[in-house]
């Protein structure tokens, strides 16, 4: 099974679950490194971006309690539940009074079973996806130009996708869909490495209309 078919199968599963489960409003699945695998069309891009950004911050600090297994937010009008399934995370937005049995069935039985079945039919390395969600860190200076900075480990992974060639340019997509291409180099400050951030010059931030702390989607361009 090709990766596209795998993703399509997951997407259809999420849609059908929403159709037959009263109380489930929307859902999507993302990998441990923040790449969205499959999403219910009902989920807005902005919601996905804010979820990933919040999740990253919690995941970093959740080592204190042994790593993140599940996270839920109960509000007056609804609920969001994030659960860890194998190396993926399932986000489910539900109504306030959803039947707990239905939620448990979906998050702990149905989705894990579907994922296991798909992997059994044909294992797909989902982690090796090109696009990556990163959190914006704006910076300025006399010689910054329009070059953005990314974690050296990520650049190295992407380089592996192109037979070891260096990645010199990336495409950046803002939450509102605006895109731009920029030259890219490594983050050299070790304090900023490994934090899932992209350093973007102020004027590029202004052109994309993104601010510090927001998530953007980054894709490497073939060298």
């Amino acid at each position: 099974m090709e990766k596209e078919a795998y993703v399509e199968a997951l997407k259809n599963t999420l849609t059908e679950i929403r159709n037959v489960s009263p109380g489930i409003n929307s859902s999507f699945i993302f990998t441990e490194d923040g790449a969205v695998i499959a999403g219910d069309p009902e989920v807005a891009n902005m919601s996905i971006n804010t979820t990933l950004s919040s999740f990253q911050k919690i995941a970093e600090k959740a080592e204190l309690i042994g790593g993140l297994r599940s996270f839920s937010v109960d509000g007056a009008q609804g609920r969001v539940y994030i659960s860890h399934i194998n190396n993926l995370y399932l986000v489910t937005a539900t109504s306030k009074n959803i039947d707990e049995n239905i939620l448990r069935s979906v998050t702990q039985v149905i989705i894990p079973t579907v994922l296991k079945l798909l992997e059994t039919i044909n294992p797909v390395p989902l982690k090796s996806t090109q696009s990556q969600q990163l959190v914006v860190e704006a910076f300025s200076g006399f010689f910054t130009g329009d070059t953005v900075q990314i974690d050296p480990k990520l650049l190295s992974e992407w380089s592996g996708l192109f037979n070891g060639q260096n990645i010199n340019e990336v495409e950046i997509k803002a939450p509102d869909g605006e895109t731009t291409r920029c030259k890219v180099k490594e983050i050299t400050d070790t304090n900023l490495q490994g934090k899932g951030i992209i350093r973007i010059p102020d004027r590029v931030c202004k052109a994309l209309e993104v601010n510090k702390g927001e998530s953007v989607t980054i894709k490497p361009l073939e060298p």
Partner: protein
Amino acid sequence: MPRKRKEEDTTEDPNAQTVSVKQEPAAPREPQTERDIERLQDSLRRLKVKKGIIGYILRAEKSASIDINDPTKIIDYAVLSSIVLNAGEILSSSFELGGVYKVTLEGEKAKMLTLRTNNHSLSVFMENTLDSDKIHRELDVS
């Protein structure tokens, strides 16, 4: 170095340290709010000695109270609690959940239950052997 609370503390753990932080003199409050906080603090004192409870952080309008078994991890738990509260607000806004009243974070070793009201927020840290819904009922936070 965190100071022990001056009020009597009946916790069984001799190594536990309680930190009370008063940021500025409290403005006059409605009696009902004061009673709510006092009642909650009594519940927390009883809860704290329960097996499996790691500690709690209680944030009121003008003060915060922290009681964690391992004093070297007070800041770590405070930071986690703050990040989770913030994430809860952001997700609530993004998914239009309305006012957040409960946030639950579960890890492989322990979990955190955070409860919010208009006047205060409470984060309770516990081992996974405990049922967070049961703890929520015992605290009777409204």
